[in-house]
Every structure is written in structure tokens, then in C-alpha cells.
């Protein structure tokens, strides 16, 4: 009995294998005919791998899904040309299999939105079969010269602007205590550069203010986010709550406690209409449109035309939601001025120069080293960036890594910033 079943199974397997072989050949032929028509809209296929469900209505995956679908609509690509594998955890086998699925569907460009997809993407891009597919990986740091890039944004620029709004509000209330619910702290450059930029924005208008960080050690957990915000308010009597986590719970807590808040990811005014000052937001369609158009029109030179992409305020890749009436008077004008300075390239957040903004809205540039809580220099007056290197006992600030490569400005995104600036307190 069982022997028969095994024999049957083997037979089925073999048949499938033969079929697969046949499909291979016929499809390679049809593929060649497709190549000629690659520039027409109808044949260009976009693939995407998501960390959570494509049907999410808020949060990280939602932001990317919105970005990709909006970009495709703008370009004139039909929804049928989008192929999605969702709920893929950061596991190499599962990500590789998802890539295989999308490649099998004939996708011309494949986006991966989560950091942990990095090695699976790097390996896939090197495979001979996938040479004509473009791989684009969010938040990573790996790339190659032909078909694999990474992308992220200078969200810290937007954070600085929200920091100004928070600082002005705190100044108006004469309460120097500001709360920040963070997914992680100094473990990730992404989170700590956001916290630092926010704090520098606060200090530009209210130098005595302190940013209290409460980290929840996960990117999203509604209960923990809520508890963290409540703890900040109860412990430090914070008057403004900012956040770097997925849901809008901290905003809702601020609304309930009748204090003020700065959102993240998308405009969170609807979650906290009476508390919201302004949110730091991502405009993902900006990148996705750039990338898809480049891959459609000139896939051979994708890396020359798009390459490693870190857009900021200038590209409108990041921004802030409209400044609400909850803000202190004059907030909008000050933010606009600073925003113009960043867009024009006149000034940026992590340089040796800081801004000092008076109550009347006058902006003065101050050249001074940025210090951390131990008064060590983390960004020198000339803009040299430092970073902690070494293990726990002999951790020391250094301007370069072990192999002597200097930390450049993009390190803020790529991941070497691992300290808080003065005035940021964790716990």
C-alpha cells in the first residue's frame, strides 16, 4: 500500500519536473519576443516584497504600497502590472523564494522594503539568471554596479523642522520637557539620527529643553507605544510627544491628555486634531516614480541614472504635514525659512554649524561643535563626523572606522551614528 503511494508520488514529481523543463524552453522563446516590446507600458512588470500585509491601512508597508501604486498610476501602468508577495519575514530563504516567485512572474524591477532582506537581495542580484532584473532595496547599504541599488531618505531634515515646532510650543508653555517614543535608540542610525535632529531643532528655539526618549525595542506595537507615551507624560510631565514608531498611539495619548504632539510617517492630524503640531512625513511615490521610470526607459543604465538614492526635502521625498493652528505663533514662518535653507543647500542639520532662532524669528548661524551628554565632540566645527567604535569597555569616539575609512555625511543614513546629542536623555 504505502509502497504504491510512494511510487505514485515519485511519478507525479517526475511529471512535474518534465513539465517544468518544457515550460522553461517555451518561455525562453516567448521571452525573446517580449524583449523588443519592453518599453511599452503594458509589458513592464513591477514586483514588491512586503514585511506585512499589502492590505494594511496604516504603517510602514502601507506607506510603501501607497508609494508604489501611486507612482505606477502617475506613470500610467495598470494595477495588473504589479506583483506583490507580502508578509515575508526577514528570513533569507523566504525572501529568496519570494524573489524567485516574482522573477518567475516576469517582473522587471523588484523592490524589497525591509532592512533584513539585504543579503537575499544582494545574492539574487548576482545570479546569472536575474541579470536583466533590477533589484532595489530600501534602508540597506549594499549595491552593485549594474542592477542593485538601495534607497532611503533624509527624514532627519523633516524631523528637525518638527523639532522647531515642538520647541516653540514648549517655549510658549514654559515647559522644557519633551517626550519622544522611539522604536530603538542608539542601536540604529535611523532612529538616533531622527532623535538627534529633532532635539537639535528643539534646541535651536529653546536651548534649555530636554528630549526624553522612551524606547520600546520594536518597530511597532500599539500597546507598548501607548504605554511609552503615557509613561513619558506621567514621569516627566512632557508637554509635547514626538514619535518614531509605526502606529499613531502616542498621538492619541497626547490628544487624550490634552498636550501636543508631532506625528511620523504620514499626516497624523486626523488621529490627534487638537494635539497635532506637524508630522514628519515620507513621500514614497517620489522615489518609486523615479526608479520605475528609469527602469522602464533605460534599464541598462539604472545605476548611472538612479544609483544609490538618498532624497531629502529638496526632492520632496521627505517633508512635513501642514503646520496646524495648535502651533505657537510664527511657527510656520520660521519653519519655512529653515526649510528653504536646507533645500537651497545653504545649511544642513548635521554639520559643524547650528542654528539659533530668536523668538522674533531671526535665524543666526552659530559655528560650534556638537557635543554628546559627556561633553565629547561628536560633530566637529569643520563637520567631521565621529562615531563610537570598539566594544563596551574600550568604546571610544573615532572619526573613522577600523579600516580607516572616514565617516561621511551619508553615514547618518547608512548607519554609523550611534550617540545622542546633548540634551537627549534615554529612559
Amino acid at each position, binding site marked *: *500500500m*504505502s509502497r504504491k*503511494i*510512494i511510487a505514485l*508520488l515519485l511519478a507525479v514529481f517526475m511529471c*512535474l*519536473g518534465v*513539465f*517544468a*523543463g518544457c*515550460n*522553461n524552453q517555451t*518561455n*525562453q522563446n516567448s*521571452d525573446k519576443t517580449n524583449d523588443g516590446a519592453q518599453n511599452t507600458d503594458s509589458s513592464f512588470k513591477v*514586483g514588491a516584497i512586503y514585511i506585512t*500585509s*499589502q*492590505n494594511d491601512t496604516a504603517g510602514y508597508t502601507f506607506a510603501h504600497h501607497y508609494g508604489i501604486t501611486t507612482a505606477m498610476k502617475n506613470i500610467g501602468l495598470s*494595477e*495588473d502590472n*504589479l*506583483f*506583490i*508577495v*507580502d*508578509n515575508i*519575514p*526577514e*528570513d*533569507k*530563504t*523566504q525572501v*529568496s*523564494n*519570494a524573489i*524567485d*516567485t*516574482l*522573477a*518567475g*512572474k*516576469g517582473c522587471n524591477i523588484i523592490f524589497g522594503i525591509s*532592512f*533584513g532582506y*539585504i*543579503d537575499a537581495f544582494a545574492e539574487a542580484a548576482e545570479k546569472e*539568471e536575474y541579470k536583466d532584473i533590477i533589484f532595489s532595496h530600501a534602508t540597506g*547599504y549594499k549595491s552593485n554596479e549594474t542592477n542593485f541599488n538601495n534607497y532611503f531618505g533624509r527624514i532627519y531634515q523633516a524631523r528637525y523642522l518638527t523639532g522647531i515646532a515642538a520647541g516653540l510650543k514648549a517655549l510658549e508653555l514654559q515647559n522644557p520637557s519633551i517626550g519622544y517614543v522611539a522604536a530603538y535608540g542608539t*542601536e*540604529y*542610525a535611523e532612529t538616533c539620527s531622527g532623535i538627534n535632529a529633532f532635539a537639535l531643532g528643539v534646541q535651536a528655539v529653546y536651548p534649555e529643553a530636554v528630549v526624553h526618549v522612551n524606547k520600546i*525595542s520594536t518597530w511597532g506595537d500599539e500597546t507598548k507605544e501607548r504605554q511609552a507615551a503615557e509613561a513619558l507624560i506621567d514621569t516627566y510631565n512632557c508637554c509635547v510627544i514626538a514619535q518614531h514608531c509605526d502606529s499613531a498611539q502616542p498621538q492619541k495619548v497626547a490628544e487624550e491628555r490634552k498636550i501636543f504632539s508631532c506625528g511620523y510617517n504620514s499626516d497624523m492630524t486626523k488621529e490627534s486634531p487638537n494635539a497635532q503640531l506637524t508630522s514628519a512625513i515620507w513621500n514614497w511615490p517620489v522615489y518609486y516614480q523615479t526608479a520605475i521610470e528609469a527602469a522602464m526607459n533605460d534599464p541598462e543604465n539604472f545605476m548611472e541614472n538612479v544609483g544609490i538614492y538618498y532624497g531629502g526635502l529638496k526632492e520632496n521625498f521627505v517633508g512635513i504635514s501642514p503646520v496646524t493652528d495648535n502651533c505657537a505663533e510664527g511657527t510656520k514662518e520660521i519653519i519655512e525659512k529653515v526649510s528653504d535653507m536646507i533645500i537651497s543647500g545653504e545649511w544642513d542639520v548635521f554639520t559643524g554649524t547650528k542654528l539659533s532662532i530668536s523668538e522674533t524669528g531671526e535665524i543666526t548661524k552659530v559655528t560650534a561643535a556638537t557635543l554628546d551628554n559627556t561633553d565629547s565632540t561628536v560633530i566637529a566645527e569643520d563637520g567631521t563626523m565621529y562615531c563610537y567604535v570598539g*566594544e*563596551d569597555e574600550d568604546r571610544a569616539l573615532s572619526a573613522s572606522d577600523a579600516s580607516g575609512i572616514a565617516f561621511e555625511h551619508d553615514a547618518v543614513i*547608512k*548607519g*554609523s551614528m*550611534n550617540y545622542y546629542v546633548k540634551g537627549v536623555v534615554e529612559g
Partner: protein
Amino acid sequence: MKTKQPFVRIVRRTDFPLWAMIIINIAAVLVAVGIGAILLAAIKVDPFVYYKDMFTIGTIDNRFAYKNFEGLIEFFVPLLITSLALALTFKMKFWNIGGEGQFIMGAISSATVALLLGNSLPSWLTLIMMAVCGAVSAGIYGLVVAFFKVKWGTNETLMTLMLNYIALYALKYFGETQAGWNFFLSGESVRPVFATFPESAWMYTIKIGKFSLNITLVIAILLCALIYIYMKKTKHGYEISVVGDSQSTAKYAGMKVGRIVMRTMFLSAALIGLAGTFYVSTAHSLSTSVTNNVGWTGIIVAWLSRLNPVMILVTSLLISVLRVGCQTAATNFPVIDSNFADLLQGIILFTVLMADFLTRFKIVFRKNTEKEVEDK
């Protein structure tokens, strides 16, 4: 006077032929697929397009079809081994629901071997060492529970369940903590990310044209045959089923129940650990979602197959096709995400358990004649 019979009674039946059992189970799966089709149609997805893609795991019109088969095998092998291992303890009515934890222990230990010794040992020795360490460490992780059960009568369900989370959080700790001692993480990344194994720790594959056959598939099918023999033809297997039927009978027959429980649990957990080893040596790295839920899915597979190793082979293949197939089929339809696989799996489980019930019991209604007799 005799007590009145209830209106409906459930009566055990013993006369159900095998062929009818097979047919009713196939019918149950078809009913589930039918319900799925109605659900799909309700959300305006063509069920035929969806199921075509699902049952062929997306290999039609696919120039990389061989990759889909490789993906299927990577999912199938750990599930098959885990389900077989769980069936061993379930047969004994020992509820090992710690498959997740034992899988993770196996994965962590074999990753330790791969990362620390992989560079200095030849490939065959590394792989054997990984398999041995993975199996033994997971075996001990399971043995502890059996020991407590035998010695102090603790509840194995709760203990294995809790040990799952201990293993999972240990793995997460390794995955997130950057420190000098933490060899699990890649040295080159600033953000914590698991290191890739040295090449000597990569599982062998046999190239057949473009398709590369992972040899763990061969080993898993061999294991299936061995466990069939072990359960049906050996003294150990007999002891397991006697202990499962009645511990008192086993004791009366002079069996050392404690020893049998500990031995079987060790074997079960060790096999699951081996599955963990196979998975990481195929993936070439650890991850915090390394189990792919096989510890849970394996329980379903074992039950659907009524703890029969041959049925487990069929069921785990079906569940794997369902999983992998749903993923590829769902890519085309924005309204469906991968959760549909869970839904369909749930419906199949429900209908098959229903069929199982019907094959084992029959529902008897009170007969009028009987009533009349009683009244007199």
C-alpha cells in the same frame, strides 16, 4: 424502569472500510477547496485562475519554474521531518507542542558549529557536526520536559509551550545584540544582521540541469520510511503505542514507561532539531523567523494524517503546495494577501476533521419503536 434514551446519540463505529475512508477524506479536501472557490468568487477573484496557479505552484508560464520547485522543497523538508517527529510523541499521547522551540535550538546549535568551526573543517565533517549538535541539543531541550513529566508529573503541554518562547527570545537576543562575543551577527553590517555561514557549512545540492536538488529531500524521505518501520515493526514502536493506549497496561506488562517516554521525546525533539539544521544549512544563515511556523503546522499535519508516516508524507506535501502555491497565486491579486493560505488550511482542517468524525462515529436518532417498547 429503564432510563429514557436521548433523542440523538453518538455511536462509535468500527466497520468503516479503508477505501471509503480515503474517498471521504479526498471529498473533504474538495469541499474545502470548493468553499475557498466561493470565497474567492465573492471577492471577485477567478477561482480557476487562482487554483491553477496554486496547484501548479506557479510553474506554468514561468521561465524560472525550477526555482519554484526548489522553494517548495525548502518548505517541505522541515515540515515533513517535524510532523513525523511530532507524530512519534502524539502516538504516545504525550503532547509535544514544543516543535518551534526544538527547531530553534537545533538551528542555533548548528549555526554555532557552522560559524565557529566551519572555516577550519572540511565540508562533510562540518555538516555532520552540525547535524549531530543540532539534533542532540534539541533532543536535550525536549528530554528535560519528559524528565520533569516522568519524575514529578508536570504538564508537558505547558512546558513545551513555554520553552518555545524561551528559545525564540534567545534567538531574538542573539539577533539584536551587538557585542564582541556575539559571533552570530555579521561583522560588516552596522545594523545587526545574522552572519552568513562559511561555504563549508552549506548543504549539498545535486544539479539536474538548472534544477538543484537539495539532498535533504532524499534524507527526509528516507527518514519517513525509517520512522514508518520504527513505529510499525519494532519493539520500540509497539511500546509507544501501548503507552499511548494505556499507561497502566504498559506498566502491568512490565514496560518501563518512564524510560519509553524519555526515549521517545528525545528522539522526537532530536529529529525536529535536525530539521532546524537542514533549514539553516540550506539558507546559509539564521533568522528570527527560521521556523516558518513548522512547529505549529506540523501539529496539524500529524493530526490530519492520523499519525501515519505515509499519510504525513502526503499531507505535508499537500500543505507545502498550498503554502507555496498560495503565495505565488496571490501575487496577481491585490485583494488577496498570503493570509488566504491560512484561511484555506483552516477550512481543510475543519472539513477533514469533520470527515474523520463521520468515519469513526455515527449519529443515531432515537427510534419510535424503541420508545413504544419502553412505554409499555
